[in-house]
């Protein structure tokens, strides 16, 4: 249990896939223009990560090394397709917003990377922890980014057609937040900020 929690925490902080490992960036920047879409993307990634981690970990003893990549990707692709079909059937607005990003979860470095690096070498239970940790770490960052961009860019926060927060119709936000360059800019500043913070923390630690 202790180990389970340690692996879980690892994904959330120490090895957060986005801010620390810098992988899975594409989807983060692209779908974080809307809170709703980014939250669903996060949930989709958690589902795919956990399920594929479980299955890959379960079949790892029967997987010949030479063809492990084809086997991994077929497994991952199957779960991605399930997400694709479910979103299409039950959340059409989210489906049309995410578009090509759903199939692209297959090649999301986080998913395949965890399959290779973790699930292929660890047991089922730990792989679940790793999947949840990594997935939630991803979801927190991406939906946070999505909420920030949507709220300050357009002045309101919409979730499944309910307006959660609104600054009123007179609000004129910085439009660049909503456009592609805004995502680059924002993410660059986030990374710079977290680095400066890390540096200060390190310095304080050394001073003590």
């Amino acid at each position, binding site marked *: 249990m202790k180990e389970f929690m340690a692996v879980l925490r690892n994904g959330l902080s120490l090895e957060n896939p986005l801010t620390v490992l810098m992988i899975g960036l594409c989807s983060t920047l692209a779908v974080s223009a809307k809170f709703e879409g980014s939250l669903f993307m996060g949930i989709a990634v958690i589902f795919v990560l956990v399920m594929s981690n479980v299955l890959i970990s379960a079949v790892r003893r029967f997987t010949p090394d030479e063809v492990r990549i084809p086997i991994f990707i077929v497994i991952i692709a199957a779960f991605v397709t399930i997400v694709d079909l479910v979103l299409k059937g039950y959340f059409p607005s989210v489906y049309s917003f995410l578009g090509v990003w759903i199939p692209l979860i297959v090649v999301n470095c986080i998913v395949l990377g965890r399959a290779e690096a973790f699930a292929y070498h660890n047991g089922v239970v730990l792989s679940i922890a790793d999947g949840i940790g990594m997935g939630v770490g991803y979801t927190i960052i991406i939906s946070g980014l999505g909420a920030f961009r949507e709220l300050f*860019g*357009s002045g309101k926060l919409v979730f499944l057609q309910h307006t959660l927060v609104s600054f009123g119709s007179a609000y004129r936000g910085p439009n660049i937040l909503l456009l592609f360059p805004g995502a680059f800019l924002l993410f660059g500043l986030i990374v710079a900020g977290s680095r400066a913070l890390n540096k200060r923390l390190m310095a304080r630690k050394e001073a003590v």
Partner: protein
Amino acid sequence: MRDNIYLRLGMPVLVICILSAAGLAITYGFTRGPIERQAREAEQESLNAVLPDAKTFERVTAAALLAKASAAAGDVTIDGVFRALDGTGATVGVGLLVGSRGYGGPIRMAVGVDRNGKVTSVTIVSMNETPGLGSKIVDDKTFLPRFGGLTSAEEARKVDTITGATKSSRGVRKGVEAALAALQAIGGVEGVSAR
């Protein structure tokens, strides 16, 4: 040795392929209903919104008519032409579902035309425009009504676009233009209602 490598590598891949294909086919079986229902509902809803007088809508399936409509629409796709019928089965107008090019991807919209060939109203079915900018085509409540009452593609071309959402609103305008042109090409509302 030769057979060995094929079998040793092939079997696991084959088993995984079979299992995932079966799993997906079953999942698809479950979700197919909702997917189709969603599509139909979205269609009905948007058609209802543009032609509130109609009770039912009937899809036009005549291939020759649809080909003519598509040719007249140019870049814009004609996703469906519908006869709008009232309770008695009389034609009250025509609904067209069209897809035009916006800034962030396709803009799908429904255009309703009454028996006199006048646009009743236009709604956006789905779009992917930038929130706060391109999405003004929906958020700006004065924009879509600008198309009401138009009778020809030439008139539609003169509708003003929205500042800050030029490309998106131009996409909508182009969609309406094409819908009207397509309708004209297949003989207007009479042409459609003649079965």
